[in-house]
């Protein structure tokens, strides 16, 4: 039987406070943090306000080290530290007592402000855009490395980027890791720093209120953006009890679904939110009537709050109305919509409400939406003795997620999710698909495929099936990566045409993601001004938009998640798929790895000195996608992933070899190991690991997670061809070695 998941520590930095207790005190008192934006220029925007956080002091940091941290890390570090301290896991030097600790985090923008500085310089004065470290440090895995480095722990990482639902998904995934027995303690969290690109994006969508954010008011006219970081320590009940930790509550249920209605608009009746909430309530072993308080997504946009109200009525309604004992509030009028952190901070609010009986008010309502009029929390309200609380988030791309927290009852009988399966030890490969770059470099849409002596490998989008797929109306605005993902996914599904789309999930993995759309959107801001930023392009810059398009075209309304990171995010994706299959959430999962190239990214690689001449020892930028259709395998039968390991990060290059050895030592010795990195930084490590015969895989340039996907397909075919188990190391540029064992039989 799988274990209960409990929460033992929380921490947050928000616009209302430098820590969680201050935030909570000011929140329940009815304060809000709306203020004019001062972090960047908003002169060309329709709206001018947001909820910005004060950055806590980091006394342990020298000014130089501090200057290298992104704003996102400045928010995340103290929040994570507070959560560890709250859980009794921080030592006297303010570092983690656990040397190994898994992380499951979420963000949408990462350190985007650093990326913006680079983009602005490149688009304006390229000669001055030499500070590559800035753009290199914008990606989300860098904030995770900051956490590892400064809090002194290491372990597997998962970075969820499901837009506004990410935070709830990261928590749910952390719980999955514990329930499936892969970890007994996970630090979960979300972080989001205000950035110009995202602010202008919401402004051009006219989704922000020019005056006050009024969730669930009939006259609401938009959201207010905010920034925050919120972390929590999740543990298995036995782990928490073995160290006599104070248990704050139980994380009892997690549900998620995908709304295929539209990229940015929820279905009017909130079908996916209904599915996510019902799934979470069922998993928690409660009834809707057991929920005393709901922290709503409640953005304050016309469509969100209508859709969400309908979803609440469907889930909690009795005789056509939501009973008044059920209290509901959106906390976004107080701290703003914190996007990738929203699911995390709002989960903390739902936990605090459960523990304290205090309820966070729904501010700025003059005339409430009738459907929730009897339920909105006023300042000063309490609800003591609640059995459970719920939080729900609806995101761009139709990502919907819900969590249920229950009062911890030591003696309660636990209903294990999905019958208490352990994860399948082996994953059946039911289909494979790939979109590869052309072997002969081609010129596409102004992209210089050779810059000087450097070779770049591009996908030829004029070839089938890509040429036809471009005519799908859903993807007409999408960044090219969507086409690659869709074609690879369709090819993988073609091998198993009978599988049920109702029982199919999607996990997509990215390193750079939709970089073409991002560059084009920001280019518009730089060239024509914030006022004329493109509403058609902004949603396509969001990490999970391509995933959402693929789900919509394939008709997959079940769980869909987007993960980001270096090449090893591909193995994180396989691990997430395994947890879903183990829990019985779905029967099959499409795991996709995809990347696209853009001239500005190639320029960045060039400035970093990555583009050595086109030999096998150089870095050759590439693009495309690979997809695996995975199911549960019968042990020892069929083409399968027989074992996988998400390797630990290392903090210095000198630790890379031992980190790789640690990872690969977990696999049997009598397997044939692939040489998978003859062309990059890890060449010398592979040389040192050399222990006899190895298998070389075809090289198709460096396309991060897409390369990892192609290598997996190559290794699977080699396993079938050679009748041997093949060990595939997957090397992460930012410091990780993960591995997969492919077998056929």
């Amino acid at each position, binding site marked *: 039987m799988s274990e209960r998941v409990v929460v033992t520590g929380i921490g947050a930095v928000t616009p209302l406070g430098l820590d969680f207790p201050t935030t909570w005190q000011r929140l329940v008192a009815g304060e809000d943090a709306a203020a004019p934006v001062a972090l960047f220029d908003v002169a060309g925007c329709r709206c001018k306000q947001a909820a910005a956080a004060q950055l806590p002091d980091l006394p342990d940091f020298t000014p130089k080290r501090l200057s290298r941290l992104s704003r996102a890390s400045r928010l995340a570090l103290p929040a994570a530290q507070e959560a560890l301290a709250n859980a009794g896991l921080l030592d006297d030097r303010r570092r983690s007592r656990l040397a190994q600790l898994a992380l499951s985090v979420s963000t949408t923008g990462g350190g985007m402000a650093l990326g913006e500085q680079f983009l602005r310089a490149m688009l304006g004065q390229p000669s001055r855009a030499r500070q590559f470290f800035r753009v290199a440090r914008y990606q989300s895995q860098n904030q995770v490395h900051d956490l590892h480095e400064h809090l002194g722990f290491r372990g597997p990482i998962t970075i969820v980027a499901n837009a506004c639902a990410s935070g709830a998904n990261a928590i749910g995934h952390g719980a999955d890791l514990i329930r499936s027995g892969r970890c007994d303690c996970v630090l979960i969290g979300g972080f989001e720093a205000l950035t110009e690109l995202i602010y202008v994006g919401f402004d051009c*969508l006219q989704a922000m209120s020019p005056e006050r954010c009024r969730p669930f008011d009939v006259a609401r006219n938009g959201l207010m953006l905010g920034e925050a970081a919120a972390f929590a320590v999740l543990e298995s009940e036995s782990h928490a009890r073995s160290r006599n930790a104070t248990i704050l509550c139980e994380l009892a249920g997690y549900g998620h679904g995908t709304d295929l209605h539209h990229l940015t608009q929820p279905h009017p009746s909130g079908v996916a939110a209904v599915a996510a909430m019902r799934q979470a309530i069922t998993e928690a072993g409660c009834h809707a009537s057991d929920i005393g308080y709901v922290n709503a997504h409640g953005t304050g946009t016309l469509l969100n709050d209508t859709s969400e109200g309908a979803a609440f009525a469907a889930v909690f309604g009795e005789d056509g109305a939501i009973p008044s004992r059920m209290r509901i509030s959106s906390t976004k009028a107080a701290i703003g919509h914190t996007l990738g952190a929203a699911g995390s901070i709002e989960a903390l609010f739902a936990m605090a409400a459960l523990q304290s009986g205090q309820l966070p008010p729904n501010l700025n309502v003059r005339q409430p939406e009738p459907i929730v009029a009897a339920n909105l929390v006023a300042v000063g309200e309490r609800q003591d003795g609640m059995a459970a609380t719920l939080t729900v988030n609806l995101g761009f791309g139709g990502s919907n997620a819900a969590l249920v927290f229950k009062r911890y009852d030591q003696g309660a009988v636990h209903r294990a999710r999905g019958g208490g399966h352990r994860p399948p030890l082996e994953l059946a490969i039911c289909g494979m698909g790939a979109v590869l770059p052309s072997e002969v470099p081609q010129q596409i849409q102004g992209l210089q495929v050779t810059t000087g002596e450097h070779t770049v490998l591009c996908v030829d989008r004029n070839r089938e099936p890509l040429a036809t797929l471009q005519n799908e109306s859903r993807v007409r605005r999408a960044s090219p990566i969507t086409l690659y993902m869709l074609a690879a996914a369709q090819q993988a599904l073609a091998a198993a045409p009978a599988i049920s789309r109702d029982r199919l999930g999607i996990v997509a993995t990215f390193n750079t993601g939709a970089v073409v759309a991002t560059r084009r959107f920001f280019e518009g801001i730089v060239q024509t001004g914030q006022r004329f930023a493109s509403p*058609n392009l902004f949603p396509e810059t969001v990490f999970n938009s391509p995933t959402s398009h693929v789900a919509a075209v394939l008709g997959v309304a079940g769980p869909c998640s987007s993960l980001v990171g270096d090449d090893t995010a591909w193995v994180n994706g396989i691990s997430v798929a395994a947890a879903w299959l183990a829990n019985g959430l779905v029967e099959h999962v499409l795991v996709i790895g995809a990347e696209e190239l853009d001239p500005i990214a190639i320029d960045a690689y060039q400035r970093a000195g990555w583009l050595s001449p086109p030999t096998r020892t150089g870095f050759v930028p590439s693009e495309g996608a690979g997809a695996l259709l995975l199911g549960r395998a019968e042990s020892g039968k069929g083409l399968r992933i027989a074992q996988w390991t998400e390797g630990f990060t290392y903090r210095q290059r000198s630790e890379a070899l031992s980190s790789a050895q640690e990872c690969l030592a977990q696999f049997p010795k009598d397997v044939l190991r692939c040489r998978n990195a003859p062309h990059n930084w890890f060449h010398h490590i592979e040389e040192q690991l050399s222990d006899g015969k190895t298998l070389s895989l075809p090289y198709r340039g460096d396309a991060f997670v897409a390369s990892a996907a192609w290598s997996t397909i190559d290794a699977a075919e080699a396993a079938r061809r050679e009748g041997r188990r093949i060990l595939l190391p997957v090397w992460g540029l930012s410091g990780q070695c993960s591995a997969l064992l492919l077998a056929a039989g």
Partner: protein
Amino acid sequence: MAEVSLDELKKLVVENCVLKIKPEEIGEGTPLFGPGSVGLDSLDALQLTVAIEQQFGIVINDAEVARQALQSLGALRRWLAQQPGVGAK
């Protein structure tokens, strides 16, 4: 005042909405939204209001005005003709 040409508006819609059809395939009376239309959605509507402001200097703040003006290219052309200071560029 010179009227905005239909061809100019066709180009504006096809380019801004990333349509996979040729500009000449859109008729003056073809609905832009809804059944039997060019197939635009709410994001396209916002995109077109931005494009109209950028190209003609006319700000559309009212959703109902936008809905009326963006029914078809003919409606947009007539609406633009009524706005002071709009001319072909």
